[in-house]
C-alpha cells in the first residue's frame, strides 16, 4: 500500500473527481457529503449541492454532521420544503448526479439500507430508505460510495431499498426508471462500473498499491475485471490538504 494517505482518503478523492462545476448533485450524508464538499473546494467550485432537507445550492463552510445542519440553510441559494425538493427538483430529472452510500450492494448495484436478514425478523435493522429510492430512480446518474468488503459486496442484497440495474439489462427501462442508475461505485480499493452489455459491476480501476485480486477477495461474487484496468491517479497535495481540513484530520 502506498503510504501518505488512508484508503478512505483516496476513496473520497476518487469520488470527488466524479463531480464538475456544471454538476447539480443530490448529496447524501457521510462519505458522499465529504466527497462533494471536497470537490467544491478543489476542482469544481461551481458544483450545485442539494441536501434532502431542502437546501438548494448550499456551500457550507464546515462539514455538516446531518443533512439539515443550520450551516446548510445559511449558505444555500434557497431553502425549499421537503415536498418541493422531492417533487419539483428530484422527480422531474433536474439533478445530474445522486451521491449515495450503501450498507449492502450487489452484482447489479442494487442497494440495501433497510435490513440485514429477513425483513420481518431482521438480524440488523438499518435506518431505511430516506430519499435514496427516488434519488436512485430519478437522478440522471448515481455514484455510490461504499467501503469494499465481502459483507457489503454481496451476490444478492437482502433487501432492495434502491434499484441499481435490477437483474440485468433492460430492467430499469421495464420499471420506468428514467435515470441511468449507478454508473460508478467508488470504494476504498478502486472503482467499479456496470458492464455496458450485462450491467454487471466490473472492476475498472484500482487505487495505487491495490491489486485486482485484493478487490476480488473483498467481493462476495466472482468480480469481473476490465482488461484495461486503470490505476487511480495519486491524490494531489492540495486534495489531501483540503480533505484533511474538512475532516479535522489535519489536527487544526
Amino acid at each position: 500500500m502506498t503510504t501518505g494517505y488512508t484508503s478512505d482518503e483516496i476513496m473520497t478523492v476518487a469520488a470527488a473527481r466524479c463531480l464538475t462545476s456544471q454538476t447539480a448533485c443530490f448529496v447524501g450524508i457521510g462519505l458522499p457529503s465529504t466527497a462533494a464538499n471536497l470537490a467544491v473546494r478543489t476542482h469544481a467550485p461551481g458544483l450545485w449541492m442539494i441536501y434532502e432537507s431542502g437546501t438548494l445550492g448550499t456551500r457550507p463552510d464546515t462539514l455538516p454532521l446531518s443533512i439539515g445542519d443550520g450551516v446548510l440553510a445559511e449558505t444555500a441559494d434557497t431553502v425549499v420544503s421537503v415536498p418541493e425538493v422531492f417533487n419539483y427538483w428530484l422527480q422531474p430529472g433536474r439533478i445530474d448526479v445522486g451521491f449515495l452510500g450503501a450498507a449492502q450492494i450487489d452484482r447489479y448495484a442494487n442497494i440495501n439500507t433497510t435490513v440485514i436478514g429477513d425483513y420481518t425478523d431482521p438480524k440488523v435493522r438499518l435506518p431505511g430508505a430516506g430519499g435514496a429510492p427516488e434519488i436512485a430512480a430519478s437522478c440522471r446518474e448515481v455514484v455510490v460510495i461504499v467501503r469494499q468488503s465481502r459483507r457489503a459486496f454481496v451476490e444478492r442484497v437482502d433487501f432492495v431499498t434502491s434499484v441499481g440495474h435490477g437483474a440485468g439489462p433492460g430492467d430499469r427501462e421495464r420499471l420506468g426508471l428514467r435515470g441511468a442508475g449507478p454508473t460508478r461505485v467508488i470504494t476504498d480499493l478502486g472503482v467499479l462500473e456496470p458492464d455496458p452489455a450485462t450491467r454487471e459491476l466490473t472492476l475498472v480501476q484500482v487505487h495505487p498499491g491495490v491489486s485486482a485480486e485484493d478487490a476480488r477477495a473483498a467481493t462476495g461474487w466472482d468480480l469481473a475485471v476490465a482488461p484495461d484496468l486503470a490505476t487511480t491517479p495519486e491524490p494531489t497535495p492540495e486534495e489531501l490538504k483540503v480533505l484533511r481540513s474538512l475532516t479535522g484530520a489535519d489536527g487544526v
Partner: protein
Amino acid sequence: MIVPLDEGVRELVHDGDTVALEGFTHLIPVAAGHEIIRQGRRDLTLVRMTPDVVYDQVIGAGCAARLVFSWGGNPGVGSLHRFRDAIQNGWPRPLEIEEHSHAGMANRYVAGASGVPFAVLRGYAGTDLVDQTPTIKTVECPFTGERLAAVPALNPDVTVIHAQRADRAGNVQLWGITGIQKEAVLAARRSLVTVEEVVDRLEPVPGQVLLPSRVVTAVSVVPGGARPSYAHGYYARDNAAYQAWDAVSRDRDAFARWLADEIGAPAPLPGKAG
C-alpha cells in the same frame, strides 16, 4: 390557545392516537416528546419521516405500538438502538412498522393537507418496499396510461411541531429548514406547537412559513424546546448530544437511568407497557 406544555399534551395527545412530531433535523419538538413520555401515553401510532433521537426515546419508553416512517436513524451518528431493540427483540414491546421513502411520506402529508385520499409519484418501482408495505400501490394515469406509485393520505389525529415564534393570537412563524411541518399541521385534526417565544408582532423573515392561528389548536411556550436539535436564529444543533445519545441508546439500563434522571419516568416494563 396559549397553554402550558403539560396541559397541551394532556388535552391533545390521547392513548391510541396517531401522532406526528415532525421536524426535518431542524426544530424537532423534543420537549413535547418528553412530556408525552412523562404522561405515560400508550399505544400511539407515531408518524415521522425521520424518527430520530426523540422517537428512540418515546419508543424505548414503551409509548408506541406502531411507527410510520421513512428513515429511522441518529443523523450523522448511526443507528437508533431503542428503535432497533423494539423491532428486533420486541423490547419493551413489539413495534409494528409501516415503511416508506421520503418522497412517499412527503406526498402522503401533501395529500392529507390537500383533502384528497391519495397522492401519486414516481417512486418505489422495483424496490422491496412494495412487497412489505401495503400502503404502496400502483395506479394508471387516466390521461397517458403511465404506471405511477400511489400512497394514501396521512391525517394524524394530532401533529406536534416546534417553531421559533408565535403571536398572542396563536399565529405561528418558523423559518430556516421548514421541512414538512406546514403539510403535517394542515393534514392533522389537531395541532400543538411549542415555540421559543411569544411576541406582540411577527416581523416577517425571509423564507418563513406562517401558520394562521385557525389551524393551530394550541401553542406552548418552551424556550429550548427543540434541543438537542436547533432553532435557527436561537441556538445551534448540539451535535455532541447526538453523538452521546449513542451510548445511552445501546444499553437498556443506561436508557432506564436516562428516563429516571432526565424525564422522571419509570423504567419501561417489558411486555406490560401496552
